[in-house]
């Protein structure tokens, strides 16, 4: 990672904004080409994401997914590990929830089952992160390759189980039976309605709160604990980590456990929050989008919350475009989302040289006598 010479506010505010605007500009051109008004489309996207009945709920629901997967990528990245196995770790997290909820639901009290299910998701996700971590640390197998392969393995395991052992009888979808009554997280609209606010129904559930707690926990872990210090030291310099006596290989394994656990907890939102049964492909690519989220959020929990909100709004507002325009199909929407991921993720630093010229030129002239 190259240290940016730009002022911090440019790095965390101006650049993401500029990237977003560029992406919207390109998307706008495409919308104009197919004959729709780009400004109408943008306003429908925004209204769909934040204003229409239940829109915000859905936006925050998707945001929750992205927070978990984005944090997972970010934590690993602080140890300079590129965990792109969020997809598989989340799928295994779903399996963890399913096994706990189906095995213990109805036997133990509901709150305990829920708690164990959440822990189960984290543990299953962590296991799916630890194995590539171990292979990286002890065998030198590159984490990018192994995490990709573990996505496929997780997918195959889920197919095998959901179309076989765990498949619900008398129906045709590869999914488990529904969890016992009550083994689910409260929906935010239910809570707010019971408090007297009238809020539209949406899948937004308590996982959102859990996600925010995880953000805080990650912040504390990375910047306020001695272990976090070791993680960052290892990430910046393996040699310095060895010099400090931090055993880089153990740090890699532990960080991958934490990263996998966070990705696994994405399943809490989808499975425990909404589906109440384990279904196939509930990860829907959120694990991969988490990479873009972490990049855009500069691997900082606060940045990740905002980036997740952006992507959540994009998912929800994008669906709204499909509702409103006959000409804008869902493939079009995916393309627009792709553009934003491209500009704010893959091309995140495209404007750096340009901005550096502007900001550093001014700076140099202002303080000539210093030095």
């Amino acid at each position, binding site marked *: *990672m190259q*240290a940016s*010479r730009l002022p911090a506010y440019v790095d965390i505010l101006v650049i993401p904004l500029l990237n977003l605007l560029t992406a919207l500009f390109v998307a706008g051109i495409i919308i104009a080409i197919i004959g729709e008004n780009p400004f109408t489309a943008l306003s429908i996207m925004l209204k769909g994401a934040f204003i229409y009945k239940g829109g915000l709920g859905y936006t925050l629901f998707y945001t929750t997914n992205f927070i978990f997967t984005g944090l997972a990528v970010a934590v690993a990245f602080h140890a300079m590990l590129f965990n792109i196995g969020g997809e598989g770790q989340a799928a295994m997290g779903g399996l963890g929830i399913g096994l706990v909820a189906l095995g213990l639901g109805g036997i133990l009290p509901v709150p305990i089952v829920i708690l164990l299910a959440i822990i189960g998701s984290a543990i299953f996700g962590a296991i799916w992160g630890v194995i590539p971590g171990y292979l990286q640390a002890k065998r030198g197998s590159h984490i990018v390759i192994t995490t990709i392969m573990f996505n496929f393995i997780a997918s195959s395991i889920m197919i095998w189980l959901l179309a076989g052992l765990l498949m619900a009888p008398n129906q045709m979808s590869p999914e488990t039976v529904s969890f016992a009554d009550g083994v689910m997280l409260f929906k935010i609209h239910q809570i707010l309605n019971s408090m007297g606010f009238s809020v539209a129904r949406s899948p937004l559930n308590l996982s959102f709160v859990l996600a925010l707690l995880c953000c805080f926990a990650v912040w*504390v872990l990375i*910047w*306020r*604990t*001695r*272990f*976090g*210090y*070791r993680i*960052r*030291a290892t990430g*910046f*310099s393996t*040699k*310095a980590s*060895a*010099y*400090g*006596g931090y*055993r880089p290989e153990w740090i890699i394994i532990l960080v991958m456990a934490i990263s996998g656990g966070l990705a696994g907890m994405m399943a809490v939102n989808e499975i425990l929050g909404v589906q109440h049964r384990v279904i196939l492909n509930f990860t829907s690519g959120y694990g991969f989008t988490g990479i873009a989220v972490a990049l855009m959020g500069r691997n900082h929990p606060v940045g990740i919350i905002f980036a997740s909100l952006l992507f959540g709004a994009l998912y929800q507002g994008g669906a709204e475009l499909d509702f409103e325009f006959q000409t804008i199909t869902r493939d079009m929407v995916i393309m627009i989302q792709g553009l934003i991921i491209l500009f704010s993720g893959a091309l995140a630093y495209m404007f750096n040289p340009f901005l550096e010229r502007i900001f*550093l030129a001014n*700076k*140099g002239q202002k*303080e*000539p*006598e*210093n*030095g």
Partner: protein
Amino acid sequence: MLDKINKVKREHIIKNGDESSPFAISLIDICKSFGPVQANDAISLDVTRGTIHGIIGENGAGKSTLMSIIYGFYKPDSGMIKVAGTPVSFKQPSDAISLGIGMVHQHFMLVPNFTALENIILGSEGKKGLKSGLYAARKKLKELSQTYGLEVDLDSITEDLPVGIQQRIEILKALYRGAKVLILDEPTGVLTPQETERLFEILNALKSEGVTILLITHKLHEVMAITDVVSVMRQGKLVAHTKTKETNSEWLAEQMVGRSVLVNIQYPKGNPKHIALSAEKVSVTDKRGFDSLKNVSFDLHAGEILGIAGISGNGQSELLSVLSGIIQPAAGQFKIAEELFDATHHADPQKVRQLGVAHVPEDRHAEGLILQFQAFESAILGYEKSPNLGVKLLTDPNINRTYCAQLMDSFDVRPQNPTLLSSQFSGGNQQKLILAREISSMPKVLLVGQPTRGVDIGAIEFIHNTLISMRDSGCAIIVVSVELEEILSLSDRIMVMNAGEVVGTVNKQDATKPMLGKMMAGMTLNVAEKGV
């Protein structure tokens, strides 16, 4: 139109040089700043054709920035560069190369697994088939090496060659590209005394063929030995400019630091007491199965400094790594504070630290601190567990900042700003910060690798004094250094290493520079003594 004239003129310069100008390079009011740091401040300088021009200054004085500007790597904020009297503007190094300016970097820019020939023609392969290009290059290089005495086996793999030869490859590469002006950045940092002498012969040969040489260094004796003209830089400014014949090293040193300093002090001998650390037949095998350390045995006493001399890469680094617990011995054992470590009972850095061993690593940038960390974070590397730096599992940045400010204050680290990135400090200040961190743990044994590599004179003095006073207070110290003067100045005893083995150990009063040089090349003590 003007462009066209410039182009024609440029081509002329490339072919013939502009005979009307006596100066190979002229700088006029060059300014360059990085953020708040003014690296070059109104530098004006004329470099006469066919001379060796020394540029000296402390680390962070702006020498490297200035050279990078001449080489087209940085663009100056203001000011003008003239090559052979013609104003030029470089967008990238290739512009400078095309005008006959070549640079040999401090850290070589060579592909390790290429042959020497491949490395030399890298970037100027020609457009036709590689093979015919190689043939032509070989012919041209043969002429070049004969003219300047730059013997290199063109077909050897670069990484197998000694650093001195690798440096020759860099020089050949620059000449092959038509360099008439050669910039050498700290060229002797990695060389043995013998290799350094050989390099100076080559530089003189180049000079006699009309090549202009800019030599960047902070070693005064080298400037005195080889340059014709010397310019001194301090804090981004050019503070002195003189013919070498008309000056002396004391005066130059004063100009560099802005006050008078003592060069090459002979410190009084220490007062060795009990054995603090002992090694017995320690061997280390690296990943490739190569024995980087063979049967090393020695005792280290409290209150003495054991200097370890040797050309870099002869086992000194591994010795420090083993003693500090970073790597494990394949055989043999060593004892620290009554605890015995060997191939089965492993030491690790945390444990060794608890036993009172502090370690100032050789590689400041990769090991000693973390460049991307703020200073206060680098100031606790290895000590972040210390109970006074936080509560239980947590650390407290405020406490760390205060702690770092104290260290900076007592060790005169400048700028005294704990939140500055570690990379933003000069080499000397980085080293002082590391020393502060390690010494503040009150160690019984102090392992120091290259205490003053790339460190300016003012800081060298401070670091040396600190080490001596640590010794006098009863600390056992090992100093590994490639600087023979440093070893001779600091050590009570000197252990010379070659190819992973101890060649011999001599007392300070018996040691001379030529003798140590021969031992570093692998001759045993007896043979070396006879040669004196």
